[in-house]
Structures are given as C-alpha cells and as structure tokens.
C-alpha cells in the first residue's frame, strides 16, 4: 500500500511491522513524530510496551534491560539525545544486544541548532553499533526491517540514520509492505541468550585481562560477518519486496571517470545531477555509502579503483582533521596497488542543515575537474567568507 508520509512516520510503520515488543523513548526535535505515531499505532496493543522515560540515557538503558529478557526493542533519538546515550551505546554493543535505533541526524550544540548534519551519529563511530544512512523515506522503512534481521543474526545493535527535516519532515510516497510479507521475512525474535530465572547467569561482570581482549575480538568478527549478512539480507529483501540494498549503492559508476561519494539524502540530489552531467556526455557517477559501520572497504575499493578522480562530500567534520567519510574512503583505498589509487578530493558542505543545492554540486564537480589533485584535505563549499 502506498502512502505519502514523512520520514518519521515511515520509521513508526517500520517499527510496528517488525513486531517490536518494547519501545523506550524520550522526546527531541526532530524525532518526536516517530514516538507520537508509535503511541497511536500501539495503543490497545498488548504485545507492545512503550516506556516514556525521563532521558535518552534511560531510554537506551531500558532497551538494554528489555533486550536482555529476549524481546525485540527499539528507540529513537537525535543529536544531544544520542550524545547523552553514549555510555550505554557501548553497553548495548558490548552486551551483544540486537537493539535497533533511529537517529534523526541533527547538528550538535553549542550553539543550539535543529538542522541536519552527521556529527551526532559519526561521533558514535567506535561504540560497536552498525550505522546505516538513508536517502529516502522508503529506504528508512525498509532499513528498519532489515536492521532487526541483521542485528539479531550477528548480535550487534543497529543505528539507522535519516537527515533531520530533509527526510524526517518531508513527505514522500512510501510503499508500506504487507504485514504477512514482513512476518515471513523477519520471523519472531528467538534470542540466543536471555535472562532466565530457570537458568541463572551473571551478564557483564568484571572481565579481567584474561578475557576482555577476546571479547572485543569477537565483536570485530561480528562486524566483519555483518558485511555478508547485510548483503544477503538486502538481496533476500529484494526477492520479497522488489527493492535491493547493499553496503553501498553504485549509480552510473561502471564507466565513470569522476565518482562522487556521499551518504544520506545528499545522494538524492546527486542522482539527479549525475543524470544531468551524463546528458552532456560527462562521465560522472555516484557511490552512495549506506553502511558506515561496518565500513564497506571491499565495495569502495572495487568501485573507486577504476575512477580517474574521486570527490567525497561530507556533511560532517572531524575537527582538526577533515571530513569523516573522506578519511574512511582514503584509508580504505590506501593498502592496495598504488596504480589503483585515484586522487581523492574531500569536500565539506551543508553543516548545520545549510542546503546542499545543485549549485553546490556544480562547484564540487568543477573544482574536481579543474584540479589534477587536491591541495588540501578540506575543500569548503557553500561557506560564507
């Protein structure tokens, strides 16, 4: 059934279709409609418990407690809320709990702002959470359903990100899958470990130097396994629902001389721009990175090694270095044959929700074609000087 809905409501439908059993959340703009819709969708539904807790820290902690009992759990947050959760994000991943969370990307204060950039979620890079970045409301809904399946298989939590306002509050047509089809794709959650009074265990107690290292090794192994699980889940999803997803999406990359790399909703603008350039005979392509963790090293190498130039567009910054996707892409390209390393340009734009317009993209493409290699690690675009 197709409906025209905002991104936040696409989240709510995805969560209900996934038969989530415990939801705990705290309000923050621009995430609030997710939970408002959920309260409406799950009122009178005894199979769901929705805890309206007093902070994001408690929202994640309650998800951890609930997930430990062996039920499917979800929360939604943004920006400052995600930052407040930081401690328990590590706990959720370390305890190997398949919690799924939505983060509506919003820039961090100070100063206060409400608009989108990715510094909130990318600051959580090393917590052990999978991170997905979505381009459309359809992808948001589809990714939630897949995220539960992936997380439950590898026992690591998933964070699904959508750009604040650009997706969260923009209405788009979304195909809402049939419940029975989702049920078949994502069966009832069967936990591998859970709290059970008939089989008592202690979870998360002090692990000394003889154990901790291996526990972390296992997390990395799970992340690595996650790559093939994400690929397979995306293919299986296509068989039922007709839409395919992977770690990345290549758009007109096969013969592209310049490949633009980005994530999130900027990919939607790029897609149109690529078509426009193609009409003029310019060999431009786009690589959309959908999963930031696990990072798609193999895909990035395979796609980018054929390009003559690469331009990474970041709506984020690691202060004191450069754009974060830019760093990751460069790092992925380094340990391979030197002849397969095209020059990589790093553009930072759109921080704090400033529009990334076609003019911005023209500037990025012009800059890349005019220079044989980048003169610095950051090329600012759309900055008022």
């Amino acid at each position: 059934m197709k409906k025209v809905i905002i991104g936040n409501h696409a989240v709510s439908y995805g969560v209900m279709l996934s038969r989530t059993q415990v939801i705990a959340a705290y309000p923050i703009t621009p995430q609030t409609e997710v939970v408002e819709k959920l309260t409406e969708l799950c009122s009178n539904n005894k199979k769901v418990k929705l805890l309206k807790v007093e902070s994001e820290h408690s929202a994640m902690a309650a998800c951890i407690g609930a997930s430990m009992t062996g039920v499917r759990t979800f929360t939604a947050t943004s920006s400052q809320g995600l930052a407040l959760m930081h401690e328990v994000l590590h706990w959720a991943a370390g305890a190997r709990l398949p919690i799924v969370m939505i983060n509506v990307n919003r820039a961090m204060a100070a100063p206060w702002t409400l608009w989108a950039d990715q510094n909130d979620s990318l600051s959580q890079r090393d917590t052990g959470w999978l991170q997905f970045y979505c381009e459309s409301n359809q992808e948001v809904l589809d990714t939630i359903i897949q995220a539960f399946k992936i997380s439950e298989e590898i026992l690591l939590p998933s964070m699904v990100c959508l750009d604040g306002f650009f997706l969260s509050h923009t209405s788009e047509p979304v195909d809402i899958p049939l419940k029975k089809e989702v049920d078949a794709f994502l069966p009832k959650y069967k936990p591998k470990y859970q709290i059970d009074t008939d089989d008592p265990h202690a979870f998360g107690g002090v692990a000394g130097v003889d154990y901790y290292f291996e526990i972390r090794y296992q997390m990395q192994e799970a992340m690595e396994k996650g790559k093939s699980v994400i690929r397979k889940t995306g293919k299986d999803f296509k068989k039922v629902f007709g839409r395919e997803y992977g770690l990345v999406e290549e758009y007109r990359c096969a013969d592209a001389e310049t490949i633009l790399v980005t994530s999130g909703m900027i990919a939607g603008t790029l897609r149109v721009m690529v078509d426009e350039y193609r009409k003029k005979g310019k060999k431009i392509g786009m690589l959309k990175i959908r999963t930031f963790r696990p990072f798609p090293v193999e895909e990035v190498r395979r796609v980018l090694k054929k390009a003559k130039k690469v331009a990474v567009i970041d709506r984020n910054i690691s202060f004191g270095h450069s754009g974060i996707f830019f760093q990751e892409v460069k790092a992925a390209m380094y340990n391979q044959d030197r002849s397969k390393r095209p020059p990589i340009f790093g553009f930072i734009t759109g921080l704090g929700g400033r529009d990334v317009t076609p003019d911005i993209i023209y500037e990025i493409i012009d800059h890349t074609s005019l220079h044989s290699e980048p003169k610095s690690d950051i090329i600012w675009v759309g900055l008022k000087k």
Partner: protein
Amino acid sequence: MKLKVTKEEYMYQGHTACPGCTAPQAMRYVLKVLGKKTVISMPACCWSTIAGIFPYSSLKVPLFHTAFPAGASVASGIKAGMDVQGKKDVNVLTWAGDGGTFDIGFQALSGAAERNEDIIYVCYDNEAYMNTGIQRSSATPWGAWTAVTPKENPEGNPKKDIVYIMAAHRIPYAATACVAYPEDLIRKMKKAKKMSGTRFFQILVPCSTGWKFSSELSIKMARMAVETKIFPLYEVENGVKYTINKTPKGLPIKEYLKLQGRFKHLSEKDIKFIQMRVNKEWDDLVSRASNYTA
C-alpha cells in the same frame, strides 16, 4: 520471636567482599524473601565485585551488571520485557549502592518511581563511594572523613534524606532497614513483595574499611546506628503513612561516633551539633508518623 525464614540460600559460599562487610548479609536476607524468581539489575557499586568477576557469580539468580546511572532504568526495561512475554511473577530488583542511588543514578530512579515501575529498588547504603576507595557521596554524613574530605575539611553537608525524597514520589512503599535487624528487614521485604509498583529500600550496611572500625564490630555498628536514632527504622506507605518500626531509648550519638575512625577528628562542639541534628530529625520523623490520618 521465632522468625520464619527459608533455609534456602540464593548466594553461593564464596564472594569477594572485604572482611567485615555487611553488604552480603543484606543481599542474603533480601533474596531469601524474594526467592528464585528474581532478576537483578546492578549498576556499578561494591557488589559489582562482590558478585564475582567473570566467569564466576556468587548469586543463584540472574544478574545483569550495568552502567552507574542505569540501575532503575535497566530494571524498568527488564520488567517491560518480562511483562510483554507474560512473565508476570518475576521480581525485578535493582541493587545499588548509595552513589548509584543518591547521586549518579538518582535521575533514573526518580523517573522510574514517578512512572511507578513495578520494581523493587534496594539501596545498600555504606555512606560513601567505597568501591573506588572511600570518596564522599551525598549519603556521607556531616563531619565524616573520606579520601576527598580530609579531617581538616571534613564533609560539610548533611546526608540527603533519600526515603523522604522517594516517599514524595508517592510510591506504594519506601522503607529503611538495617543488617542488625534482619527480622525487621525480612518482614518489610515480605510486605513489599506482595505489593506492586515501585518499592524502595534504604538498607544501612556499615563498612569497616571506609568507616574505619574494627571488622568484628560491623553488626554492632549497625545496631548502634538505630539505637542512637541517627538511622531510624521506619516505613512509608503511599508517600503519606509513616510508621516508626522501632523507638529506641536514644543512646548518645557520641558512643556511635567514637568507634569510627572517620569521626575521630570531631570536637565536642561538633558532636553536640550532630546530637542536636539527630534529635531534631527524630522529632520530625515522629511528627510525620503521628500526623497521619487515614
């Protein structure tokens, strides 16, 4: 009085508490009442190590270790997860120290109490951050030495009145208890077990390491805390019905303070001040208990 307590034990023989620690007794009595169908959410506290380091556990019930501020919030989630699966007969217990209750865990506790989560929250109170090496908390009494309140500049604020604060959330049950009075503790825990909603306990557990007294005096110290009225035994139902469980004659506070190294530096004037505060607070409690009309 013959006390009906199960012979069943829910702790194994071994644990890693300091000699003279009374926190294990508190756990032992509580679990004897709550029994096998109990799940524990435990934020950072002395018990995080007393429970045993991986792969050991000193408890025969499921235990989930969690982050310092998250004792009550994790318990809320455990209860929700159990409920949604129809497992209604499981007692969800948060077991936290005074730091994890009075300070860093207070927001989550207040939130859970306001929502009237169906959990039992026990704060075993040893009046400072003992696991990290005796730093003051907001449960540390006025005048006490700790590693961060040296005797030249001892704790300068009165202890936070946690049971009053919890009672002000109008939760069904809030009570104090003490390891020197197991019959009182067990009776109250039995009463709480039959109720639903948020039930809060503050159990005083003297700490020979942090309070600086000889380890064989632990239970005596707990008894004296009650006898001097510095730690009254009472319970509060629905935030309004205060009942004092024991009215001691009132041993001078000096007798209690002089056995503890943490109070060794106090002057006669300081001790008089503490005595005055104890008397005043007791009178306040008595008036709360007598003012209640059903």
